[in-house]
């Protein structure tokens, strides 16, 4: 009698552990999924990048733009802030620039706004930006 009860309890315990393991895995998968706004932001960014920028972004998670006023090169890394770097002649980050849209947006949207700003109104973008030393 006691042996039977223990067997049943053991079986139930294993089932519970298996279910918990499944739930934990599902939760991890759900948590790591990009949100719909992130996916939309990335899609829009990809539509507006030049073919060269898109290839660079796919390969390195960043793309480079040319400032419309100075001709300087800037690297825009995937992110939502402190992600714009002015490059030196050798392509190394020299100065970091932080400027973002006023409203909370997905990373792809932030990067697209930064790209358009540097390519069409570089001075205006840098005038509002804070600078930082690249690590």
């Amino acid at each position, binding site marked *: 009698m006691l042996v039977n009860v223990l067997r049943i309890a053991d079986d139930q315990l294993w089932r519970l552990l298996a279910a918990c393991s499944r739930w934990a895995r599902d939760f991890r998968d759900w948590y790591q999924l990009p949100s*719909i*706004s*992130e*996916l*939309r*932001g990335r*899609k*829009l960014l990809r539509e*507006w990048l*030049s073919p060269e920028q898109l290839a660079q972004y796919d390969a390195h998670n960043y793309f480079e733009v040319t400032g419309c006023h100075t001709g300087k090169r800037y690297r825009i890394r995937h992110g939502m*802030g*402190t992600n714009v770097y002015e490059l030196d002649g050798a392509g190394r980050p020299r100065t970091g620039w*932080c*400027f*973002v*849209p*006023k*409203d*909370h*947006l*997905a990373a*792809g*949207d932030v990067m*697209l*706004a*930064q*790209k*358009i*700003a540097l*390519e*069409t*109104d570089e001075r*205006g*973008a840098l005038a*509002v*930006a*804070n600078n930082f030393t690249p690590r």
Partner: protein
Amino acid sequence: MATQIVMDHKGDTRHNFDAKDAKALLKAERRFKELTGAGFTAATRTADGEPVVTRTFDPTAEETLFFPRLVGG
């Protein structure tokens, strides 16, 4: 069909309209003025794909993108 794309917390909101429809065009122009008046930047693309910032409503633009005012982070 022309489109106005407004960046927002959902990613973006797209407003499609028929540029040959005078009423729809007027509504699109009103939206353009409201958004730019609220500090949004409007951008279109050239045939080469280069972005161009536009300050006035262009009824021939197939796609206009609006993003919020930029601030120092």
